[in-house]
């Protein structure tokens, strides 16, 4: 069994904070298919369209028939551990700092033998499940877990190094006024977060969620308005150095496309909150979080944006809001690139219509706060970069992946004329 991870001691102020180091990043373009799948937590391997062979490692041609018709597909992740070894030294700085480190070979039921990292509870000839995860360089690595759950298995140091687990971490949720905040705070608390800071804008007006939030055990409500640069800087000055996960759930939403409105007021507010809000948070919290990604058990680990799935392709009834989310999504990609050297992970959580006042006239299914919280915590525990909450978001994403132009047609039909 895994030793349970104890809460970290208070930081020794006389000891220099460890600088982040990274595992090797280089991959072939073909091998990036594995990283793309890891970003969503999928275990995908190349399947040959011609002979059906499943192959690993990724190559440009089938190792069975030399066909180049290879397709990344979800693959049965079960297998048997063939051989294992423990590495005690390495020329790579990242691993030198983390030895001992277990690796091994696994015979997949799907065919190939893979080399992978090993969870501490895997035993030789034992059955394992392979997970495909991003390491701190943002590239896919395969990790074998025992197929039977073992106690405290999520505390395994090799597993934790690849995830954004909230356990023992201090987390900022940026908007107390979002109806999903209480559920997110509760789910994070249940997942072992040690402190939850919640930002509250405009303390001069009532907040319906304030009482419930303030009553929660680990929650501290602090002033934060993402539309106010000074406010963001002030909070970052106070807690930026102990924000291990930042969850940006600030959202401004009004219905309407371009012509449904006669001015730019709401659109500006949407950009102020959904786009510039993210930028302000990143400029204030980003540098200090990026400097603390190797700071022990509660090192900073992840940045989460909660976005509309229509960041991918517009929903014209909410056209201006969609545009602001598309801008935020694009900014998140820039941020992801800028954080990459530090190992700080950017996770985007995409929702369809949510169960709140602005989507009230829309029919179900709508995403509940509980579902957002569940998807968010699972996404962090799996170290994801992209995750989709609810059937609508998953469906839109699948259609987007299949053909963005068809998706756009489908969502912009005007209906048959008389």
């Amino acid at each position, binding site marked *: 069994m895994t030793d349970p991870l104890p809460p970290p001691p208070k930081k020794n102020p006389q000891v220099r904070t460890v600088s982040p180091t990274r595992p090797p990043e280089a991959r072939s373009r073909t091998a990036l298919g594995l990283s793309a799948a890891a970003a969503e937590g999928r275990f995908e391997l190349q399947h040959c369209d011609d002979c059906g062979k499943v192959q690993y490692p990724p190559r440009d041609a089938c190792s069975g028939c030399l066909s180049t018709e290879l397709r990344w597909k979800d693959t049965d992740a079960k297998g048997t551990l063939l051989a294992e070894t423990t590495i005690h030294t390495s020329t790579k700085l990242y691993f030198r700092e983390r030895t001992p480190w277990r690796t091994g070979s696994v015979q997949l039921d799907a065919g190939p033998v893979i080399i992978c990292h090993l969870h501490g509870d895997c035993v030789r000839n034992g059955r394992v499940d392979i997970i495909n995860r991003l390491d701190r360089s943002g590239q896919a690595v395969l990790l074998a877990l025992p197929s039977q759950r073992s106690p405290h298995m999520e505390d395994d140091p090799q597993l934790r190094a690849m995830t954004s687990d909230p356990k023992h971490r201090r987390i900022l949720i940026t908007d107390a006024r979002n109806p999903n905040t209480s559920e997110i705070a509760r789910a994070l608390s249940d997942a072992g977060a040690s402190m939850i800071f919640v930002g509250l804008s405009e*303390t*001069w007006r009532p907040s319906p969620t304030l009482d419930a939030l303030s009553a929660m055990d680990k929650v501290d409500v602090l002033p934060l308005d993402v539309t106010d640069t000074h406010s963001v800087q002030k909070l970052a000055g106070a807690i930026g150095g102990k924000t291990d996960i930042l969850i940006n759930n600030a959202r401004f939403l009004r219905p309407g496309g371009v012509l449904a409105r006669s001015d730019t*007021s709401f659109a500006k507010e949407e950009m102020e909150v959904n786009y510039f809000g993210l930028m302000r948070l990143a400029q204030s919290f980003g540098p200090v979080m990026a400097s603390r990604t190797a700071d022990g058990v509660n090192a900073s680990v992840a940045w989460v944006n909660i976005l509309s799935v229509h960041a991918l392709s517009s929903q014209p009834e909410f056209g201006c809001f969609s545009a602001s989310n598309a801008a935020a999504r694009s900014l998140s990609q820039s941020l992801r690139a800028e954080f990459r050297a530090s190992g700080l992970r950017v996770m985007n959580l995409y929702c369809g219509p949510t169960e709140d006042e602005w989507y009230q006239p829309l029919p179900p299914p709508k995403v509940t706060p509980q579902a957002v919280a569940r998807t968010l915590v699972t996404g962090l525990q799996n170290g994801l970069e992209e995750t989709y909450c609810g059937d609508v978001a998953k469906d839109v994403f699948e259609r987007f992946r299949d053909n963005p132009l068809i998706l756009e047609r489908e969502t912009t039909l005007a209906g048959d004329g008389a």
Partner: protein
Amino acid sequence: MSETILSDLAKALGDQSIKVIDLTHTLDPDFPVIILPPEFNQCARFRMEEISAYDHRGPAWKWHNITLSEHTGTHFDAPAHWISGRDLPNNSVDTINPANFVGPVMVIDCSEGSATNEDFELTPELILAWEEEHGEIPKDSWVLMRTDWSKKTGADYLNMRDDGPHSPGPTPDAIRFLIHERNIRGFGTETVGTDAGQGSHYTPPYPAHFYLHGAGKFGLQCLANLDLLPPRGAILLAAPLKIKDGTGSPLRVMALVQGNDI
């Protein structure tokens, strides 16, 4: 003659026998603005972004871009602000005769009643009682309703509840009296608007806005330090920014007060 008055004034300002009182709140991102139902466009909060601060963006100078509404912070309402004043001549801040920006000010103290009643109303009876003591309100004066509401901070200022905000203000009759019987220049308050928090429930809704601006009169709101003014005898300086077609403007409101009045 004017030379004598102005030189006397300059002397009095110099020896502080006439004092300058600031009636303005600091423009601050956290200062409340009026809240409308969320499907309506909203009043912009005050925001400030650095352009540079003696750094790589501009090595020897610091400056900011600011954003705000015409009706953010301590501000002036022009007749064009309300539908009742939309068709009046010279109804925007850029066209108002600047002589209106300097003038006598009367202060009606409603602080005692407002301390115990958040929905305290200024009525014609209270105005007449004030006049009993201090004399009739002169034509073309500013009339300010002192409530000491400006001393409230945070959520107490808007005092917003599920049934709307609660703060003192004038009744429709009081405003009609000030306009038709006294022909005032304008009316000012310490609260977020010239109307009571519950002013939407009067007939007509928001009577101060409706009647004042319909009659070409002006409004001042979010005033501070009214407790430092005498009931009468002070001069108000309230000049809005010259915004083309502007319906109002943030401004620095000041009063000249004779030393023995405070």
